[in-house]
């Protein structure tokens, strides 16, 4: 178990966890209707910082996003004695789009990709270790806490400062508009009248440590365990029966945990599909009687912050013996049996489950519990399983190498990928719908699996279907990828669709790929992989960090093998994929 040392929430409702909690307790929300905001033609409701708040949050030399993170982390650090300069302390940033509102129309001069942003922030705050950015769409905040838990459990670090944050901009809002996912009015989680989500901006920090600090007899929060996975169903729609969320819950709850749950902090975005899917998963997991906490009616969907922020608010409310009303909910509108209320409830229980789901098919669950601090240290539990690499594939704009052997190719750049697809893979028309990053990883993966002797070669898979035997075998394979430039090619493409007021036609099939973890979903769907799928962003290719993350994931979960590597795609003529398969128990 890993101890929660301190927290912060910086949102339009307040600059500390306490201020935020008191506002929620009194029923307040910062949701407001916007019309014609930043050139977005459609009206929408969101929780955004006011101009005065933006000014008050600004940190010299930092962008709006960076300032928000710096403020949140600094405030959290005032509540805990943590030496950020210590080599046993790591900074983990959770964000979906970081500084994207600053993406220049042309070139990328001066633009910081999320990993570079994290490095700048870490430096500003005094961290000396390499920061890690988690970019797993909506579940990033849960993924980031789980990563911290694993790295500490593996003994790589003693403390982790995890901050989740996102700022709203025309870039993000227009994308959700194209998905017809936004509600013009305040969102209504789990309600019969729900028609969509509200977006929100916030930063939220949780400091996790191996060492318990509570005085004897005093209680403190602990992150017990968690799980993330993929439902391998569709890149933007959850499995209707909530298969991924159900599996994440089942992996996270052990015997006796159910009875101790005060509440389940749900994702509850108030879209038709999400809430329905969650209700199914909760019922299947035997949690129909546990009261839900749906917080999107206060904050909207704060994206990279959500998994952290909603965990913290739930902790703080349980400190008070309360389950906050699910604001916006009135009449049940899901078919799975769940217990949800818009009234304040009291509870004496001391545990809760946080669940979350996101684009790319990813799902996550974390179990938190409040226990008496023993004032001593939880030992690191490094596992001693042997890991082995099986095969590798490397693709650059002008070369293809399989298991270190150069292959003959003729095309270059983007055309090389299509040449490889046509000559060595084929039978999967979805290839042409993918963005550059997904195409790159898709072809590299297919070649890798051909080497592994499982993927059918050209001509053997005319209908693009996965052979059933293969899917079954691969269920416990994770996909963990790293890069530097996030989804920059898709980002530019999306930005072009909204850059001109006359031609404002954001495209859902472009926007979806601006979430770089979609590539992990593409691989999971094609091959039926249902273990973790993660995309991490670093400011440079750091093999040591990549190995640490992959090993911690393999060793601290039931995953049997992982498809992993560096997959960066800066433009059509500048990319690199170097991927391999690592297995345990060989």
């Amino acid at each position, binding site marked *: 178990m890993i101890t929660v040392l301190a927290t912060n929430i910086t949102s339009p409702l307040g600059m500390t966890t306490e201020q935020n909690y008191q506002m929620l307790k009194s029923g307040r929300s910062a949701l407001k209707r916007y019309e014609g905001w930043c050139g977005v033609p459609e009206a929408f409701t969101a929780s955004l910082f006011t101009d005065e708040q933006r000014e008050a949050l600004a940190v010299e030399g930092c962008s709006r996003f960076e300032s928000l993170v710096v403020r949140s982390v600094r405030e959290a650090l005032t509540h805990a004695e943590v030496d950020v300069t210590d080599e046993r302390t790591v900074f983990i940033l959770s964000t979906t789009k970081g500084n994207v509102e600053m993406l220049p129309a042309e070139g990328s001069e001066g633009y910081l990709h999320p990993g570079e942003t994290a490095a700048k922030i870490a430096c500003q705050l005094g961290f000396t270790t390499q920061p890690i950015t988690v970019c797993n769409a909506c579940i990033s905040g849960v993924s980031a806490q789980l990563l911290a838990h694993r790295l500490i459990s593996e003994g790589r670090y003693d403390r982790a400062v995890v901050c989740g944050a996102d700022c709203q901009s025309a870039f993000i809002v227009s994308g959700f508009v194209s998905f*017809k996912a936004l509600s013009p009015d305040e969102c209504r989680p789990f309600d019969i009248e729900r028609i969509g989500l509200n977006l929100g901006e916030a930063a939220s920090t949780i400091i996790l440590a191996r060492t318990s600090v509570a005085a004897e007899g005093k209680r403190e929060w602990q992150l017990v365990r968690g799980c993330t996975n993929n439902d391998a169903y569709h890149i933007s*729609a959850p499995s209707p029966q909530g298969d991924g969320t159900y599996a994440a819950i089942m992996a996270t709850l052990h015997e006796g945990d159910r009875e101790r749950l005060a509440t389940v902090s749900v994702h509850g975005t108030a879209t038709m599909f999400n809430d329905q899917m969650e209700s199914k998963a909760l019922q299947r997991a035997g949690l129909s009687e546990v009261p839900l906490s749906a917080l999107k009616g206060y904050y909207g969907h704060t994206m990279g912050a959500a998994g952290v922020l909603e965990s913290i608010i739930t902790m703080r409310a349980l400190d008070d013996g309360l389950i906050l009303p699910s604001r916006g909910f009135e009449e049940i509108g899901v078919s799975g049996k769940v217990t949800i209320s818009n009234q304040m409830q009291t509870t004496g229980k001391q545990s809760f489950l946080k669940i979350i789901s996101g684009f790319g098919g990813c799902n996550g669950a974390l179990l938190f519990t409040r226990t008496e601090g023993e004032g001593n240290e939880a030992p690191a539990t490094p596992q001693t399983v042997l890991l082995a690499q099986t095969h590798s594939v490397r693709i650059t704009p002008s070369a293809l190498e399989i298991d270190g052997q150069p292959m003959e190719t003729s095309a270059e750049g983007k055309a090389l990928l299509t040449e490889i697809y046509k000559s060595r893979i084929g039978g999967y028309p979805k290839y*042409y719908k993918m963005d550059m990053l997904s195409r790159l990883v898709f072809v590299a993966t297919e070649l890798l699996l051909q080497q592994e002797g499982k993927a059918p070669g050209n001509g053997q898979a005319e209908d693009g279907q996965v052979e059933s035997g293969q899917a079954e075998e691969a269920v416990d394979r994770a996909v963990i990828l790293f890069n530097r430039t996030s989804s920059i090619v898709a980002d530019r493409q999306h930005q072009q669709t909204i850059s001109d007021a006359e031609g404002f*036609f954001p*495209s*859902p*099939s472009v926007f979806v790929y601006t979430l770089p973890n979609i590539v992990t979903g593409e691989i999971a769907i094609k091959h039926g992989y249902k273990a973790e799928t993660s995309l991490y962003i670093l400011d440079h290719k750091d093999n040591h960090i990549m190995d640490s993350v992959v090993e911690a994931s393999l060793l601290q979960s039931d995953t049997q093998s992982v498809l992993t590597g560096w997959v960066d795609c800066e433009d059509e003529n500048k990319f690199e994929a170097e991927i391999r398969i690592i297995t345990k128990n060989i």
Partner: protein
Amino acid sequence: MDELIYALKEQIIDALNLEEMTPDEIENDAPLFGNGLGLDSIDALELIVLLEKHYGIKLASPAEGKSIFKSVSTIAEYVEKNRKK
């Protein structure tokens, strides 16, 4: 009408990146979703963008598109009646 149908097929191939298809391969009355071209929910949203971009038709929700997007013929009929450009 034939002209509109052909233009729609080209626009659909382009918008949905149906790279290996030609307009002649899409039958006028064949279902676009399900067993037909095998389009998915993102494709449906993309068709909504297509109608707005090329014909000035605004659909509020994917649900509205359900009956319109049955086949190229049904889209053409709807466009013919409702186009603004």
